[in-house]
């Protein structure tokens, strides 16, 4: 029983760090967007004939700070839970 709780605690800590690292990496590699999550981006172009400036919408998922925050929070909660379980198992 003690070993099961210890294993759970280690899994929670490892999983928490993995989730935290994966979230931060995903957010950073997607452009480190400091705003809300976007589902499209606007690409600014100039029409070569009329020289009118316009924007073209391209569907693209860009995670925002709320996804980063949720990942960090979730990972931290898992790590904290694992640490608490480990501490309670110590004699």
């Amino acid at each position, binding site marked *: 029983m003690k070993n099961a709780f210890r294993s759970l605690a280690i899994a929670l800590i490892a999983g928490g760090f993995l989730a935290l690292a994966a979230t931060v990496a995903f957010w950073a590699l997607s452009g480190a967007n400091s705003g809300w999550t976007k589902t499209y981006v606007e690409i600014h172009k100039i*029409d070569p*004939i*009329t*020289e*009118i*400036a*316009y*924007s073209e919408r391209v569907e693209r998922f860009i995670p925002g700070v709320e996804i980063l925050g949720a990942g960090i929070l979730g990972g931290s909660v898992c790590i904290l839970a694992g640490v608490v379980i480990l501490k309670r198992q110590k004699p």
Partner: protein
Amino acid sequence: MKYAIAAIALSVSCSAFAADPLTFDFKDPKGVNNVVFKLDAPLESINGTANGISGSVTLDPENPQQTTGKIVVETKSLTVPNPMMLEHLLGDGWLDAAKYPEISFEVKEILGAKKDGDSGTADVKGTFTLKGVSKELTVPAKVTYLPGKLADRTGGQLQGDLLVIRAKFQIKRSDFGIKPGEHLDKVSDDIELSLSIAGAAPKKS
């Protein structure tokens, strides 16, 4: 008799070379034609665009004062980045796009037209209609006539001319009954509009 025939022949040949007014269609399936709107309130700045543009302008390049026409923007085509804000913008509390599907400007008079080659500037007096309310406005505009450029734009499929209109002006939402006096800290009463549109006049074969 000989002189009369010569006079008639001369007038016919002159009228054949005189410029006929051209009608430019501003419907643009590529979505290049656009209107940008900006509201700058103390607590919030709102920037958006609209590209559901249609309408036509009839212009005689040799006689720009005779220009007539109407430009229409589909209200549903207005967009802002925030989906919640967009829902409110088009909803019945604000623009009510379902009841008022079009925003338009109808040209009534051209004032102070100045030509510089194929470009020109003028003050365009007309009727601006928003949310069912019409107001007379005078808008400074820059017009560029591009003869023969329609072929470049259509990959050679159509021959004809292009007309590019650029205009920047300001309206007050309160003048059009859009929540007058309300939410001024977040939604400015002053709305800056920038129009960049190109119309096509295909040559008749």
